[in-house]
């Protein structure tokens, strides 16, 4: 089985339990670099898919929480190579499939030739690259595909209809439906328009649809449940980790 299939399988298995999949985002090496793998295992024990954020100095799509986490991780010397090495050396494979979420520049520093094999060796199933729109993505997508890895596509409420069909039509892994215009972390009320937009995304997509940006509470997950296959929880989880609280307990509290 290809690594990219793991993600769809995990989402399907949540569905079989009658709930949307929980895709949990954590910044690598945050809050403490040396506890990366144990934090990851804790998160993976209660999530269906884990997104590991590669810290970057200029996270332009992120709000304050993830900016702060990125900064803390960078100060402790977290790099993409260190993340890949730590994952490859981890004694136990995490209980959930892993995606790496990274801005493009750290990926360029490793290089598109080396990155896919190193990622596969590290047990990574795919990538999410927030500053890489489809028009610029072909080269990386092809290289990842050759190793059986996904490049997850994002769509947003302002994506025009024809672009939405084209992006969703060729989606790989799942479609990451951004719930709002803005950066990560701000709470969204999930108004009816958002649900209608998610229905449109789902209709256009043969791959599962996961909604992300601003999801913090079970109420939101319940409201979204009928309209998506999964939800991405990022800033709220990072804040839980920041406060030293139990990540697994928080993730389970989101189950409807």
């Amino acid at each position, binding site marked *: 089985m290809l690594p990219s299939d793991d993600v769809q399988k995990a989402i399907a298995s949540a569905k079989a339990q009658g709930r949307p999949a929980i895709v949990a985002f954590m910044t690598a090496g945050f809050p403490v670099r040396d506890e990366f793998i144990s934090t990851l295992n804790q998160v993976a024990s209660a999530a269906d898919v884990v997104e590991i954020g590669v810290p*970057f*100095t*200029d*996270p*332009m*799509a992120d*709000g*304050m929480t993830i*900016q702060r986490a990125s900064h803390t991780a*960078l100060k402790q010397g977290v*790099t*993409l*190579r260190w993340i890949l090495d730590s994952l490859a050396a981890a004694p136990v494979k995490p209980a959930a499939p892993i995606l790496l979420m990274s*801005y*493009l*520049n*750290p*990926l*360029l*520093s*490793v290089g598109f030739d080396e990155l896919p094999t190193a990622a596969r060796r590290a047990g990574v199933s795919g990538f999410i690259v*927030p*500053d*890489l*729109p489809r*028009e*610029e993505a072909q080269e990386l997508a092809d290289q990842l595909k050759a190793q059986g890895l996904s490049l997850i596509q*994002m*769509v*947003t409420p*302002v*994506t*025009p209809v024809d*672009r939405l069909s084209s*992006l969703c039509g060729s989606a790989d892994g799942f479609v990451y439906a*951004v719930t709002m*215009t*803005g*950066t990560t972390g701000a709470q969204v009320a999930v108004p009816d328009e958002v649900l209608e937009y998610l229905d449109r995304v789902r209709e256009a997509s043969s791959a599962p649809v996961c909604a992300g940006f601003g999801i913090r509470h079970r109420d939101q997950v319940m409201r979204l449940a009928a309209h998506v296959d999964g939800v991405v929880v990022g800033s709220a989880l990072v804040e839980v980790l920041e406060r030293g609280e139990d990540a697994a307990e928080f993730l389970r509290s989101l189950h409807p």
Partner: protein
Amino acid sequence: MMNFDNEANRADLLEREIRGEFPDDKGRYGPFGGRYVPETLIPALERLDAGIKRWLKDPEYQAELTRELNTWVGRPTPLSYAHTLSARWGAHVWMKREDLAHTGAHKINSAMGQALLAKRLGAKRVVAETGAGQHGVASAAACARLGLPCTVYMGAVDIERQAPNVGRMKLMGATVVPVTGGDQTLRAAVDEAIRDWVTDPNGTYYLLGSAIGPHPYPYLVRELQSIIGRESRQQMLAQAGGLPQAVYACVGGGSNAIGMFYPFVGDKDVEIYGVEAGGRGSGLGDNSATLSYGTPGVLQGAFSLLLQDAHGQIQETHSVSAGLDYPGVGPEHAFLKTIGRVSYESIGDDESLEALEELSQAEGILPAIETAHAFAAVRAYAKRHPGSRILVGLSGRGDKDMPTLTRTLLKGKL
């Protein structure tokens, strides 16, 4: 990556640049440029692209822009002969006086052009970033003139060192938001302006000041700033009796430089030089000399040269001048360097301050510290090429730099 080692290939790329083939339909200058932004911004960039195609060459838009530039900005700006410096340095130094444009720098050329475009695109508000504060002031002025609400993001470090400009923006009705994240200078201000824009991509127009960012911004800024080079070229022919042997401009993100250089790119006998901030040395973090020390990468929407570490993390920069204190550079500059058409060098903090003092005393012009970097390089060129004719972009005036100058050149003298 294209092959730049081959001379024929470089010559071919130069011919294509002269024919106006760059940016290409992917927004690239050779390999540089492109559009690396969150998906949320793609429709806004598509609209901007369509708006540029619709309006930029439109006679009615051009007539309004020209009227504003002539009767409100004060264009054409003069070309002044530097009598004293020319005699002292042994070459003929001609200064393109963008410091005399309204609001005190070249930034107003693009700010007014983009604000007129924002109106036509139906923008409800404008956001801008600023480093030295000149683009912030220009944006505030253009928006006030056209009745558009304007929010300017400015790094907390720059707010302190360019304090006079903060007051000017506020007086013209702009909201100035201090940016305390990141490096608290221009780069952090761009990040924050993008975050604002991504929150309301339909109603907000991002008035980007430098020749950086995702396509079509580097192109738009070049087109609006090229008036500097076009006027200079005509004025050199009329006043100096011929084209210059060398053209100089300072380069941070590269807006005044690309505006000055682009109309001269086809004049192959004209040497073109860009001057970056050498800061306090050549070490990573000690300067902002991206073209001298940078490596290829993606920052803030474009593939260009960057000051970064081996892990792709952007480095903190240093320069005494806020306007040059930036770890990236416009993609067209990276291209012009790579094909060998423009040479880039760097001048340090101390040398630029000396040049500022010399220009002030010799010609009665207090330039911006950014601009002074170019003069320091011109002085060295003049001494190497006695009798030559040199054109230098005097991109802005130095009033805004009084807080820095009080701490440096005027220390103990006030």
